[in-house]
């Protein structure tokens, strides 16, 4: 287990006011002549808590900053401001990446590119133990076999190479590698997006099994509302670098309140021809650039409820119900609209 002190009162992961900016204009800008550097404000003031044993989903579309958020937690990108506390300790105290990786591991979207094509499966899975544990080679291999079996791969896979595996099997290897060091939190970045439907369901069930077996917490990054619904306890909805709504997953998905959450959920196709929700979708436009996000509320150019105030003043995240928060100046309007729809 991790060497640092754990405090049960603290959430496992506590992100506050996190901002991650990237400089753009790089190759063509001349430092002394170019007055302003543009920033991609990929993550801009985000707060998220993940409790022990909890599953938290961050839902949003491409470019909303959800993957950058995950990378910042792992320390793979530097944050501009804000704090990330892991087991109550400021992550900057975990100077060596080794200390973070003992607690947090990650599974990436593309099962192909995240495996070394020249390494045998058993070596790929046992490699994290080389740096993060004091096990000898024999023990490392034993541990690797144990987790490979736990993810549903039997011993005949040990000496295989990634190219001899199907997409689903590769993702199982990625999951095995993430849990082999017995982390407390696993970040899953679009864990099933690259997989076929029949295989996606297997992986989702596997994740639930492993969570119980190894007492894991998950932070799931996904664009897929139904994946978030199936796996998570709490859902955060992200739009253009900001959290626009969060709360218990079933509440957020069944009674969305922020106009963007409503649009996102009604746009997700329901597998039932009797409920053709998609053809009724009213949202227009596309996700804005985060280099020059719209002023005020970032969703206002696409929002059916927007008024003048929305283009001037940015709405703060405010409580809207039990454990629920949303950032919208006119949250009462969506309640009325929801009421109308159900009436």
């Amino acid at each position, binding site marked *: 287990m991790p060497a640092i002190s754990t405090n049960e009162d603290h959430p496992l992961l506590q992100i506050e006011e996190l901002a991650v900016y990237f400089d753009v204009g790089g190759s063509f800008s001349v430092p002394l002549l170019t007055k302003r550097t543009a920033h991609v404000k990929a993550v801009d003031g985000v707060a998220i808590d993940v409790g022990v044993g909890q599953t938290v989903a961050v839902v949003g579309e491409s470019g909303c900053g959800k993957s950058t958020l995950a990378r910042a937690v792992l320390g793979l990108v530097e944050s501009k401001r804000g704090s990330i506390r892991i087991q109550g300790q400021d992550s900057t105290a975990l100077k060596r990446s080794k200390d973070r990786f003992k607690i947090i591991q990650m599974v990436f979207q593309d099962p192909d590119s995240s495996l070394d094509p020249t390494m045998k499966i058993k070596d790929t899975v046992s490699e994290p133990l080389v740096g993060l544990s004091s096990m000898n080679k024999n023990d490392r291999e034993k541990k690797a076999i144990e987790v490979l079996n736990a993810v549903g791969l039997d011993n005949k896979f040990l000496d295989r190479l990634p190219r001899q595996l199907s997409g689903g099997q590769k993702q199982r290897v990625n999951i095995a590698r993430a849990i082999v060091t017995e982390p407390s939190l696993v970040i899953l970045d679009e864990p099933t997006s690259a997989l076929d439907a029949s295989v996606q369901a*297997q992986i989702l*069930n596997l994740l639930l099994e492993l969570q119980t077996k190894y007492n894991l917490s998950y932070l799931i990054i996904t664009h897929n509302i139904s*994946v978030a619904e199936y796996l998570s306890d709490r859902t955060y909805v992200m739009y253009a670098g900001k959290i626009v709504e969060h709360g218990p997953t079933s509440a957020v998905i069944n009674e969305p309140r922020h106009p963007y959450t409503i649009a996102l959920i009604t746009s997700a196709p329901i597998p039932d021809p009797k409920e*053709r929700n*998609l053809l009724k979708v009213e949202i227009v436009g596309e996700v804005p650039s985060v280099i020059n996000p719209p002023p005020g509320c970032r969703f206002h150019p696409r929002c059916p409820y927007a008024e003048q105030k929305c283009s001037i003043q940015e709405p703060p995240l405010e409580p809207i119900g039990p454990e629920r928060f949303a950032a919208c100046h006119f949250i009462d309007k969506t309640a009325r609209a929801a009421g109308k729809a159900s009436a």
Partner: protein
Amino acid sequence: MEDNSVLNVDGLSIAYELKTGAVRAVDNVSMSIRPHELVAAVGESGCGKTTLGLSIIGLLPSPPAKYVSGEVNFHGKNLLSLAPDEMRLYRGTEIAMIFQEPMTSLNPVFKIGDQIQEAIELRDSRGKRNVATERNRSASPSRSGTKTKRKQIIDVLNLVRIPDPERVADRYPFELSGGMRQRVMIGIALAQKPSLLIADEPTTALDVTTQAQVLKLMKGLMEEVDTSILMITHDLAVASQVADRIAVMYAGQIVEEGEVFDLFSHPLHPYTQGLLACIPSGSKEGKRLKPIQGSTPDLRSIPAACKFAPRCPYVMKRCEAAKPELTVKEGSHRVACYLHQ
């Protein structure tokens, strides 16, 4: 088969000849598409749905692809019997295709307006006179004079509901978002007034809110442009939202086909049932998903009889002995499974 069908694929088999032997990517596929109908070919990777689409429009590289048997009848004419020159009169004008990734389908160094104009000029130069299909095209624009080229370009952009078309026409593809680019592709395809549009995963690369807009647009344009659509997709939920009929493909074969309502209310083939049970809905506190066992098959080592047998929960002796044929179960609902014969 129906005389008025736009497309009638009959017993089509296509193989890819590889060094290690031939694989059957499309295996004895028969399907038809009627006017104004949206048919979705649904299946997982490697099921042959893209090969099917490319074969209809004659874009399949041959070799390695080889037409083994069957016909692709378009308004009664077998496209597979045409010489390359003749096929060119159909491709793009009578049958158009859009692809998954709209960035790679547009030429990055030409302005949007120029690329649309090229499509319009191609349509006008062919005049569609050489094509055997004489359909009543009341909506076809005057071929000469009255409209300026610029106006025609703007019309196409308006058709696909692009805001501020005057400005967009002068932009390059990289300046547009993914959804805009796919709209432009749809505009270029439909500018030629094809009677069949093949859409290969048209919204897979798009965000959900954009996907919803593009699908709504495509569905709305079918009447306006007088076209039918063959949509190729891996997403049963998307298909259920827009399709009139669905053909479920597995390992090169159609295993079930029917009206969208029949297929969803009474899925007959174990594979279709499995796919539906795989779609997450509800929370983990509710019912667990029931995944299909195993993984999508490798066509090089696939059983000769029922190809789904190794993954099927209801597999019987005869499933491993002989191949079940696609037979009518009820009305127009067809299934290839011994459970229903």
